[in-house]
């Protein structure tokens, strides 16, 4: 970073560090908020390595979208795919092979049945109805997730007994972006509710390939409602909108039309017994999407039976309907020094292309359009003594595929040890898990090749030690992960990798709560990758981290954060400076100024497309992953 940028960073961080005469009652109330925020999360400490963004954190950051938090998670390089959707696994031509992040809103997994990727759905959608966020790393326990993943992000919605208010908010940002919401949430005598509406028009930084504008703009309208009492909770969500899909499928990156309209509707009913040992839930979601593309070059080709044996197309219409339904039953049994959780889950996925028109050809419906998953799991905690817990869990899954796609069985198991005193905490886990191919991979493999795809396997050994001293918390995490039979696309079909990549990861974290000042968080991580002898670029190293400062002075709240990521031996490096200042005019009205990627120096991605007819490779260099954006907003409580 240059001198000017370094000065800007230092100024933003240290200008807010004025000492403030905070009355004792003010301090006690802020401590009450902080401790209450954290006490909501402690019960699941045994489920994995936990990162928490409390309500206070989210409010001070004025978080607009989930990607702002994912950027802070160690070992993850946030990215966007060629359709402009959030995708940390993006690699050219490797669509939807595997998503290692699963997203939940309360107990509902947000997943697109076809792509298997919920992060694409939610990465850039509003979060105004979210109270706090828990991120579980290191292959969390089965209590939390149905399908195996490496990272689970749980978004918890606002609750009536902590809201008791109505709020209207609106904000404007660079390039004509607007975001407006209203919500009402209250606790009544016997029940509480939340009702939330949002309308967002997100105008992204355009990217140009010669004269072609590649847009990632998104427009969405979101309704979320829930009502709950001591035993039952009912949730409802409707989202509709459209998005411009950046590069799309165009061979020369010359799209003239590239847009997806979508509708998402979800409802769920959740039951919990009075003593919380028995839980049941049933939910259903449907997603309609219509993607229209036209390229001034070509989009693809269809094999035909007459010379030249292929037909090029420049237009495409895809109408996809996806249905998803889950049923979940779990029972917790406590006896002597033991707690056993038994769970049974059923999942139904359906994905039907109502229309798949390539050029002038309406493609026939594929016989593969449904997947059922049944899961049985056991999660046991044995209390060795007052400080130590031994955990063990096993999950059995059966995937019932349709058409000519074969069924899969999957087994996952986890052993763990947890040691906890007031000052020291140790968590260690050993994990083995099967990860089946996504429906997207199975669908296209079914068209492209008669060859079978094996499921992927993950073996993970990890340990974290935490040291707490008064208001200072340090933690050090180390892990080694093996990925066997990783799936990739070789240009003609999907295959399993012969090599077994190994990932070694280290992370150091410190959270320092300073009385009458606020909080400072620091994280540094390293990921060392051995991609196997058949990979010419075998060894890779990436490191990153962030420094964040949260504090309040009088009526002002400040949030400043500098994230960085460096890929050794490449130009893939970036520094992302985010800053938010909130002014609380009175109890009911506040204004804020929020800046994202202020230095315009965050990570960039290079995209490319290959034209098989002309053999020309078209490259888009240095596309900003994070837009540089400034928001001005207002919130009014009434």
């Amino acid at each position, binding site marked *: 970073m240059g001198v000017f940028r370094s000065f800007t960073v230092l100024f933003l961080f240290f200008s807010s560090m004025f000492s403030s005469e905070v*009355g004792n009652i003010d301090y*006690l109330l802020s401590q009450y908020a902080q401790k209450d925020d954290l006490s909501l999360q*402690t019960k699941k400490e045994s489920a994995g390595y936990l990162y928490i963004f409390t309500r206070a954190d989210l409010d001070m950051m004025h978080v607009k979208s989930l990607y702002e938090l994912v950027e802070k998670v160690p070992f993850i390089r946030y990215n966007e795919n060629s359709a402009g959707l959030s995708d940390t696994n993006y690699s050219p031509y490797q669509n939807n092979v595997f998503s290692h992040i699963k997203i939940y809103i309360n107990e509902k997994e947000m997943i697109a049945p076809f792509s298997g990727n919920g992060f694409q759905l939610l990465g850039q959608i509003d979060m105004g109805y979210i109270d706090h966020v828990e991120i579980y790393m290191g292959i969390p326990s089965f209590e939390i997730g149905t399908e195996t993943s490496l990272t689970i992000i749980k978004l918890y919605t606002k609750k009536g007994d902590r*809201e008791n*208010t109505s709020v209207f908010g609106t904000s404007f940002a660079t390039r004509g972006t607007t975001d407006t919401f209203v919500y009402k949430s209250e606790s009544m005598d016997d029940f509480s509710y939340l009702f939330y509406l949002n309308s967002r028009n997100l105008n992204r930084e355009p990217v140009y390939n010669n004269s072609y504008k590649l847009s990632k703009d998104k427009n969405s309208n979101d309704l979320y409602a829930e009502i709950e009492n001591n035993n039952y909770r009912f949730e409802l969500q409707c989202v509709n909108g459209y998005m411009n899909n950046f590069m799309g499928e165009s061979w020369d990156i010359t799209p003239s039309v590239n847009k997806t309209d979508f509708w998402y509707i979800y409802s769920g009913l959740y039951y919990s017994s009075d003593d919380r040992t028995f839980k049941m839930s049933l939910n259903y979601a449907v997603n309609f999407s219509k993607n229209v593309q036209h390229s001034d070059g070509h989009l693809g080709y269809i094999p035909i039976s007459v010379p030249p044996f292929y037909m090029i197309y420049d237009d495409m219409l895809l109408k996809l309907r996806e249905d998803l339904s889950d049923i979940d039953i779990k029972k917790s049994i406590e006896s002597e*020094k033991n707690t056993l959780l038994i769970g049974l889950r059923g999942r139904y996925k359906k994905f039907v292309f109502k229309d798949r028109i390539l050029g002038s050809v309406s493609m026939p419906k594929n016989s593969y359009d449904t997947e059922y998953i049944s899961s049985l799991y056991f999660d046991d905690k044995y209390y060795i003594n007052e400080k130590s817990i031994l955990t063990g869990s096993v999950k059995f899954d059966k995937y019932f595929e349709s058409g000519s796609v074969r069924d899969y069985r999957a087994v996952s198991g986890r052993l763990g040890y947890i040691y906890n005193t007031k000052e020291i905490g140790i968590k260690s886990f050993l994990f083995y898990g099967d990860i089946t191919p996504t429906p997207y991979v199975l669908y296209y493999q079914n068209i492209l090749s008669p060859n079978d795809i094996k499921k992927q396997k993950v073996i993970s050994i990890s340990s974290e030690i935490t040291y707490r001293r008064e208001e200072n918390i340090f933690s050090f995490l180390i892990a080694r992960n093996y990925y066997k039979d990783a799936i990739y696309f070789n240009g003609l079909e999907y295959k399993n990798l012969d090599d077994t990549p190994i990932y070694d990861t280290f992370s150091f974290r410190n959270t320092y709560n300073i009385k009458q000042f606020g909080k400072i968080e620091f994280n540094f991580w390293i990921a060392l990758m051995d991609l196997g002898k058949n990979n010419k670029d075998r060894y890779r190293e990436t490191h990153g981290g962030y420094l964040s400062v949260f504090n309040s002075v009088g009526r002002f709240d400040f949030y400043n954060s500098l994230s960085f990521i460096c890929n050794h031996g490449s130009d893939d490096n970036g520094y992302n400076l985010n800053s938010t200042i909130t002014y609380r005019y009175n109890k009911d009205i506040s204004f804020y100024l929020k800046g994202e990627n202020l230095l315009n120096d965050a990570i960039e991605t290079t995209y490319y497309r290959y034209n098989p007819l002309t053999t020309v490779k078209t490259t888009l260099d240095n596309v900003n992953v994070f837009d540089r954006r400034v928001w001005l907003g207002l919130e009014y409580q009434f």
Partner: protein
Amino acid sequence: MKKIVIILIILFVNSLASDLNKIKVEIISQISSVIMKKERVKVFVSDRKFLKLKKDTKKIKFVNTCQDADIIVCKDIKNLPKECRNKIILCTRYRSYKRSDSAFGAIFWQKGRPNLIFSAKSIKERGIRLPNSFRKYIDE
């Protein structure tokens, strides 16, 4: 053995909850000492969800009936016996505070944060003078 399980659960899960309880007691203690100007104030807390463990301190003695209390912390005034409704009452729900003419103040959650308010009318009627650090919590 079951006692061991209960102790383990309390230690493992509630370490932060006990810190939380201490902070709530300290908040009540601060409020009580500025309102009552007494060395030790008797407090009755009927809202069990708000405060689970009532541990006496130098400034506060927790009592078991509202009749014995100087200050009452409750969810809703309408649930109190009539003879207690003239005492200094802090509601733990904003709706209860707003509905009542006699509530002195409230400590409640709103917009994800704990809030504190005191009724200007009650302060004036009782001739109480709050220190500067509490003035911003007066509900005009």
